[in-house]
């Protein structure tokens, strides 16, 4: 009995760690830049597939891929924001109009990225085995790669949280989220800051991708599922709240793990039900204003 409960909790934390990571990225992109990035999952997918390619072709360790994929996707995100979204933002009549049109533009990105991935990697399910040995935690047994993934997810989230709360740039980011106009008056280069935020969102996806590829099978169409989960977590935690996303991610992971224990097919349905109820009862989320 104790082992079963421990099993559910640890499995939930592992899922939750990944959810928190991807949700923090999305939350940053929406909270600061007002871009609800539907193609967020595609960045995760790029990270996962790059890791797979690097490991199977060149034998580069997935943990090393974290350092390769993260910065690469940061750069990609930065450029996409600098060109596409910055132009769109300048042209939009209001912030609401920008939110709508950027949402649709990110759909366009989703189609493009997914199609390129399908051309490169084909539509098959891919997977590899890395750190597959079982680890025993007080009777609950997990493969080592899951524990490593959880460890890294927690460390990355923690470092990122400290970065936002303690560094100068973190403060500038939070100022831009609070009020872009005043931030600009205070000497924040707003366009650069927004592009950095979008890039940081992609960076988080670039960290989540390799970790996901270590644990699950991957395919080029996997992105949208993670995007939806990220959106659910972000709304759960309150739109734009980073702490909320971290809490929301771990809670959704735990809920998913409990539901999966009773009926594996129902976890996604449970997420939707929670999400819809949440929107109806408390649309501002756990920590929303």
């Amino acid at each position, binding site marked *: 009995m104790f082992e079963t409960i421990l099993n559910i909790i640890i499995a939930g934390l592992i899922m939750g760690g990944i959810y928190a990571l991807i949700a923090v990225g999305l939350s940053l992109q929406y909270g600061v830049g007002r871009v*609800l990035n539907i193609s967020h999952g595609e960045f995760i997918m790029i990270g996962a597939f790059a890791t797979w390619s690097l490991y199977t072709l060149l034998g580069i360790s997935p943990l090393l891929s974290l350092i390769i994929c993260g910065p690469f996707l940061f750069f990609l995100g930065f450029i996409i924001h600098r060109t*596409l979204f910055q*132009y*769109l933002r300048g*042209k939009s009549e209001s912030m*609401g109009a920008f*939110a*709508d*049109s950027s*949402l*649709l*533009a990110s*759909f*366009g*990105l*989703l*189609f*493009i990225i*997914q*199609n*390129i991935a*399908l*051309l490169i990697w084909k539509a098959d399910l891919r997977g590899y085995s890395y750190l597959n040995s079982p680890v025993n935690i007080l009777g609950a047994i997990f493969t080592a790669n899951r524990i490593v993934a959880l460890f890294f997810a927690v460390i990355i989230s923690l470092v990122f949280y400290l970065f936002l709360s303690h560094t100068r740039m973190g403060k500038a980011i939070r100022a831009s989220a609070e009020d872009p106009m005043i931030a600009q008056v205070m000497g924040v280069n707003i366009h650069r800051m927004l592009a950095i935020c979008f890039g940081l969102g992609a960076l988080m996806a670039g960290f989540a991708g390799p970790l996901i590829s270590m644990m699950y099978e991957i395919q080029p169409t996997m992105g949208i599922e993670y995007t*939806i989960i990220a*959106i*659910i977590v972000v*709304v759960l935690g309150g*739109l734009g709240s980073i702490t909320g996303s971290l809490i929301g991610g771990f809670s959704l992971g735990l809920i998913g793990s409990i539901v999966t224990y009773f*009926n594996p*097919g*129902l976890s*996604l*349905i449970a997420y*939707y*039900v929670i*999400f*819809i109820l949440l*929107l*109806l009862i408390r*649309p501002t989320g756990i920590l929303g204003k």
Partner: protein
Amino acid sequence: MEGFNVITKKHFIVGGIFLILILLFLMPFYAKPYLVISLTNILMYIILTVSWVIFSGPTHYISLASAAFFGVGIYTSALLGKTLPLTVVVVTGGFASFILAFFIGLLTLRLRGMYFIIFTFSISELIRHSLLWWETNVTGTVGRWVVMVSHNTVYYIILTIFMITFIIAYIIRRSRVGLALRCIGEQEEAAIHIGINSTLIKTFTFAISALFMGSTGAIMATRWTYIDPRIAFDPHLSFMPVLMAIFGGTIHLYGPLLGATIFAYLEEILTTKFPYYYMLLFGAILIVVILFLPHGLFGMIQKRLKGGPK
């Protein structure tokens, strides 16, 4: 010169529309079956887009639940198609969607902007996943067969739905309800203050737009013969009407008509000629349209012709 001006622009447009309708009605007599089939497809997209615009155009509430309403129509057809006559099935499909949309509308009244978009999307995904789960775990069979109907029958029914949709859309736009909807879109609080029953009007219009999507789903199901939740509630059908409407422009009713026609035709060409690059091209077109045609294709044409509003 005044005397010659008896045929005004308005007569000209009405006459033109009448002529096109006659051509469309006689289509199966002179055109190849392939053309009729692809025209059916295009008409389906036009109906989805125009009915989407009925609600979302003036109010700026972007709904991503089209797939849900369409899918409900498809399932009605699969469940009742064997026992009831086709027209009854089509009407029932429409009303089933109407009722669903009415309840969704009642539930989502508090939500605006981003929340509304995500909510409508998740409702449609929830239905899809639940049905799939139900079919795999409870009934044990995924998918159903739908009764086949001849291409021409499908074509005529869909043409009829199209005409009704367009006329209703036109009437709503020109009526007090249309003005109220636009008012809600501009500033909802003000609309409520000047005495518009925003709740009633939003819910009712949302349901009306779902009515046409549902009946279209019911008739299109007979084209596909086999359906399952993944086909019936394909999220692609939620996105397409939005893209088509924005592509065409929502300021005027001809916008979505034009957008849907061009887009549906484009989709047909792209999927047959460039099956491996279809999504890539599609995404690129989408981004270009959002960047450079904010008021859609029709908005641009209007601007060119008149020097336009702004």
